[in-house]
């Protein structure tokens, strides 16, 4: 546990040092602020969805920026040799790094709470619905971070890792649009795989455990794949 904590702390510290994370934060807040303002001015009404509607799309771009460094940089610097010759297992390394990226998600969401606060100045806000939506976005973003870590375990180049994670995430997005184009059984099948689809209920203010479970499985699947991909390097 102490090792995971130590790895986690190190990653958070490196976030503060890396210019990429500042670019990611700036991008997220600027675009979110812009979209919120224009939408709010457009409809002139207090609606909760103004706050979270665009978030999932923003995470599509922010996730690669936040996660691409995590394992690639260790592989490039040769510091993986330090980690994996220490009495630490691969799972602990992946867990520490993953928790750091999830903390960044929490930070982004926490700062985004200014928008509902702005809304309260113009009318009353349904905090219950908002909490459900924020929980949903948090779960979605956490799932996306797991994809990012997996992509980062594949290459010693941050660039390649970033592009890979963007491609995988985009593929999940496209599953959603594909399911929109279908009907009946195939539509339902594709929807089940789409991380966006599982967000819908949260945005309506409904917390359904089956959706929560979906995100958990998603996270464990991709973290498991990351562990496998790192283990494989030893046997190459």
């Amino acid at each position: 546990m102490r090792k995971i904590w130590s790895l986690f702390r190190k990653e958070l510290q490196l976030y503060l040092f890396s210019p990429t994370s500042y670019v990611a934060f700036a991008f997220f807040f600027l675009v979110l602020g812009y979209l919120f303002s224009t939408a709010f001015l457009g409809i002139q009404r207090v609606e909760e969805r103004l706050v979270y509607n665009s978030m999932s799309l923003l995470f599509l771009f922010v996730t690669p920026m936040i996660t691409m460094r995590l394992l690639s940089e260790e592989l490039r610097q040769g510091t993986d040799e330090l980690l994996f010759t220490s009495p630490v297992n691969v799972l602990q390394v992946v867990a520490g790094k993953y928790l750091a990226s999830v903390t960044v998600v929490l930070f982004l969401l926490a700062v985004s709470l200014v928008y509902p606060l702005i809304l309260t100045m113009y009318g009353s806000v349904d905090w219950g619905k908002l909490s459900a939506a924020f929980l949903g976005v948090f779960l979605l973003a956490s799932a996306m971070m797991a994809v990012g870590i997996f992509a980062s375990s594949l290459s010693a180049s941050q660039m390649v890792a970033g592009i890979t994670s963007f491609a995988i995430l985009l593929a999940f997005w496209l599953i959603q649009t594909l399911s929109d184009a279908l009907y009946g059984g195939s539509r339902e099948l594709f929807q089940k795989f789409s991380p966006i689809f599982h967000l819908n209920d949260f945005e309506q203010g409904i917390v359904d455990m089956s959706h929560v479970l979906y995100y958990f499985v998603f996270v464990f699947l991709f973290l498991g794949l990351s562990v496998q991909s790192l283990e494989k390097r030893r046997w190459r």
Partner: protein
Amino acid sequence: MLEVRNLSKRYPGKRGIEAVQFSVDRGEIVGFLGPNGAGKTTTMRLITGYLSPTEGEVRVDGQLMTEHSAKTKKKIGYLPESPPLYPEMTVEGYLRFVADLREVPVREQKGRLAEVLERTGITGREHQLIRRLSKGYKQRVGLAQAILHHPDLLILDEPTSGLDPKQITEIRELIRELGEKHTVLLSTHILPEVEMICKRVLIIDRGRLVEDDRPERLSRRLEQGFTLALEVKGKPKAAEEILASISGVKEVTRREGGSEESVKLLVTLEEESDLREQIFYAMAEAKMPILEMQRQDLSLEDVFLKLTTAEGGQRDA
């Protein structure tokens, strides 16, 4: 202390190592020698558990690396070829991080840190960013990292590569000191280094262990007749003829240098013959005084070349 048995690592389409076998006793400093690409780093990575072997086993203190990896890894301190540092961390932050990874109890960490900073000579720089350190200091931080958890076995992969002469001397001194307490296996392709620090040499070539002995014994064993360097006053041609006529002389070659009146020669003798006296009298008789005569021992460098080029002849790239 360390036992490597029948260790092989095969890569598809690339040479790894094949059936490497040796053991190292507690307190030994062993040099691991070989040309670039011979398999030194691969062997070390297998010993430290960074890579898994295709075949064979590594035991540290009798424990199998593949079975008790966490326990075994705790006993090893490892400095890879390029020190595994995070440039954005401070020296202290980095060493604390490593201490956590290696399970050094929190209350002991402060003392340990002070101790390794002192031993590696980086006290006073603990608050600097690693990025800002010179190459020599980075190497020291790398060493500090390797000894932080008081490992029994130290594996150092080319610890002096890329340093300036002064730093090299300092690092060597440090390794020698460390050798008093720890068992050390260090790889290098610089031969004098091995002669200076190590009591035993392993030579690896093209993935196979070709020699395992003490440095001075190695050179003696491979000494097939020694060579004399001569400077003789007189005509080159005549001198060569006289020397060649002495029985037991294998070859006479002319060396660069010498003045107008003298000639410098290299005389190779047959195995186990010492002809210095005969040469002296022969030259004296011919009124060609010897100005200089020196016996040339085979340096480890020559031994190394002999071993790694002897078999097979041409080397595949």
